[in-house]
């Protein structure tokens, strides 16, 4: 295809060239590693919890940039070009404040903040968050043999349907048979050569489990406390739904009175009033007794509160109720939210501190970054300790 010795033009088939996508995959792998290393911060990100229906979230990753010696960007002059009528003082554009609110945005083509943001789907992120989580002390209960809907291709047979033809093995059989006949190469395919992949339905035993999510909606719960509760339960619900197809979730909110609500109500309710935590525990006990007999159900009550309960009397009642919950539940989880650390001593947590039972898990949350550790504490798979074992 020569036009002249000095200038030539060709067109080749590049369809097998894969270098860019391969390095891109390595980069994505590194993004995942970076996310895994920063889960504490990412799990608490507001953008994720509020991304209803939006599938892709932007995750700021500061560690994944190749550092180099460079100048402090600060106040630096840049050169631009106008249309002939620019004047000193002309405004070119605006930059969102570099505070929290504006962090998610890169300001167009203007030079600005430059840390790296990765696009991650919520599902990918969830898979990373849930990697090591599981329901603790889970026991096989009930006899629900639930055939999961996936199948495993784990056998090769001589008969089968053509769509499941195993081409590689078929060719190998043919080559081997030809070789035995003293012929080189592939050809003269017969029915004997054909190999098919076959599958088995994959059955696994599931354990029945119910999770009771309790949430304090009293007046003392401030913006931060509400946010943390929402954030925690958002991940918890998502986790349970992803990992366990058979888990039921009961939602309870309480101030001085407890109510069972649906999921929407649970996440969006804003009430106020005093606090009587015992009401929620009572309701939980009732629901468990009515609907989820201990013989057939693993049960996991979780409660989030700011720990500000109505007097010592109710605290003592709560302690009794928690003990009776512990008698029949796999775990009782209590999360106390204290913005910026511990405020008062007369909280529920100090009441519960007398409980000496591995099935009671108490967590104090002081800021956003504690949400992921809390998840890990509540949902780390633990086995039942043999009787008499020392913790």
């Amino acid at each position, binding site marked *: 295809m020569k036009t002249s010795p000095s200038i030539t*033009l060709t067109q080749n088939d590049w369809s097998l060239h894969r*270098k*860019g996508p391969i390095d891109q995959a390595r980069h994505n792998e590194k993004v995942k590693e970076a996310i895994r290393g920063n889960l504490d911060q990412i799990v608490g990100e507001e953008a994720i919890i509020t991304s209803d229906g939006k599938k892709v979230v932007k995750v700021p990753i500061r560690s994944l940039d*190749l*550092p*180099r010696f460079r*100048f402090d960007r600060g106040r630096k*002059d840049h*050169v*631009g070009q106008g249309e002939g009528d620019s004047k000193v003082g002309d405004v070119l554009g605006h930059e969102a404040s570099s505070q929290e609110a504006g962090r998610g945005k890169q300001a167009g083509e203007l030079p600005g903040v430059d840390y790296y943001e990765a696009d991650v789907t919520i599902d990918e992120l969830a898979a990373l968050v849930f990697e090591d989580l599981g329901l603790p002390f889970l026991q096989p209960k009930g006899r629900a043999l639930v055939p999961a809907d996936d199948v495993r291709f784990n056998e090769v047979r001589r008969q089968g349907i053509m769509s499941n033809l195993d081409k590689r093995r078929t060719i190998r059989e043919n080559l081997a048979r030809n070789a035995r006949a003293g012929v080189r190469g592939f050809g003269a395919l017969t029915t004997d050569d054909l190999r098919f992949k076959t599958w088995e339905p994959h059955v696994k035993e599931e354990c029945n489990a119910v999770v009771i999510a309790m949430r304090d909606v009293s007046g003392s719960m401030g913006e931060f406390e509400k946010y943390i509760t929402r954030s925690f339960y958002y991940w918890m619900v998502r986790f349970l739904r992803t990992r366990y197809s058979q888990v039921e979730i009961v939602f309870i909110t309480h101030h001085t009175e407890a109510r069972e609500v649906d999921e929407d109500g649970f996440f969006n309710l804003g009430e106020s009033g005093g606090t009587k935590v015992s009401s929620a525990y009572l309701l939980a006990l009732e629901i468990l007794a009515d609907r989820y007999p201990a013989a057939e159900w693993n049960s996991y009550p979780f409660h989030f509160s700011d720990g500000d309960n109505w007097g010592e009397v109710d605290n003592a009642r709560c302690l009794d109720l928690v003990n009776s919950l512990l008698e029949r539940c796999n775990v009782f989880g209590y999360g106390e939210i204290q913005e910026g650390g511990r405020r008062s001593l007369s909280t529920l947590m100090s009441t519960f501190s007398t409980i000496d039972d591995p099935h009671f898990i108490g967590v104090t949350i002081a800021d956003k970054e504690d949400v992921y550790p809390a998840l890990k504490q509540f949902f780390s798979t633990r086995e039942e300790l043999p009787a008499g074992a020392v913790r």
Partner: protein
Amino acid sequence: MTPDEVRDLESSMAEIWALAQKVGLDPYPTHFELVPASIMYEFGAYGIPGRFSHWTHGRAYQQIKTMYDYGLSKIYELVINTNPAYAFLLENNTVLQNKLVAAHVLAHVDFFKNNAYFQHTNRGMLEATSVNAERLRQYEFEHGRDEVERVLDAVLSIQEHVDANPTLRARPASDDVRPRAREPREGPFDDLVYIGSNRRPEVPAPERKFPPEPEKDLLLFIAEHAPDLEPWERDIVHIVRSEQIYFLPQMQTKVMNEGWASFWHARIMREMDLPQDDYVEFARLHSGVLAASRRSINPYYVGMKIFEDIERRWDQPTDEDRARLGRLGGEGRAKIFEVRELDNDQSFLRNYLTKDLVEELDLYLYRLEDETWVIVEKDWEVVRDTILTSLTNFGQPYIVVEDGDHHRNRGLRLKHCFEGQELDLGYADKTLRHVQRLWGRSVHLETVIDGRPMTLVVDDERSLTVMTPR
């Protein structure tokens, strides 16, 4: 492009080549390859086809591809500075677009061949990078992907720190001038060695300074003198350095190179026998390439305007120029060819970005003030000098090796040659850890923080100390 269109483009290329020769361009033989968009973006991300694998290339690829997929930007051509030159065209461009790009490319190749700053580049770089990539792949087999990546990350973080003027070295860098043992060892047979002479030969006093002059080429210094690097690790440093040196002249002549190519693609296309419709399409494309941006300077436009201005001023000098500078007039063509041969962006802009041009191009400085980007300066000299400053050392901090045997303990002492702009400390810290990983011993960086001289010290990968110098 259909086969017919490819044939059309092919025959036009012969014409373009002839026209380029006629106007005085002198390119290397050039080979064009039509590629799909995905390949073009890959080459754009790697700089050279077949370059070594690294996740930063993967990231660049992803970013460029995303921009293209959303229709935000498009690469028209990619040309590799080799002999013969290789250029890549998009196969889904129109014939006319590719004709224009071919003319543009030939001017680039002429620039590569004739500009002084390219005289020492390796014109077989396409093969060299492939060999480099192959060697790195081999190292991955031998030492594991993560190990190689760890070294590459560290080297790439300081890849800019090579000497842009490698030919100006006073001495070959490979001279090992490390301080040696001060006295030769004494032994029982010394008398036999020095038999027949009255006294022992003088031992030259050891050179105390190492390196004798501050060394700009950090990569070379590390490759040759880092105490603990394995040979394959040194090789990786050399590989990155050689590729960086290949790219340097292109970074040094961005405005000139694009300006030169735009200047000539316009003239060559006008010479061609284009149908009416094509001519309109060409004018549209041409103005698209030259579009001004309010927030950066478009090197295609600014470069081309300067070349046009030079040609005009040397063709029709003012009476003053004739009298004072002895310009005869009619020398425009000769002058721009001389400029393309001798200058780089810095000298080009310093010498030829005149007051009239800054005003005609309406260049200005802007900055962020209270969350608003405003124009703050229009004075032509300030604007020009700001552009020049931003080009000094490619806009990177100038860092040299002061001492490769700090505290007589093989520590590495670097110095940031402070010229008014302070370092981004977060980045400096992380980068120093990478340097420490390569050097293996403590690494010191002298710089200025908040107006006071300071030294950053990284002893191992985990700790950073900030000290005031003694």
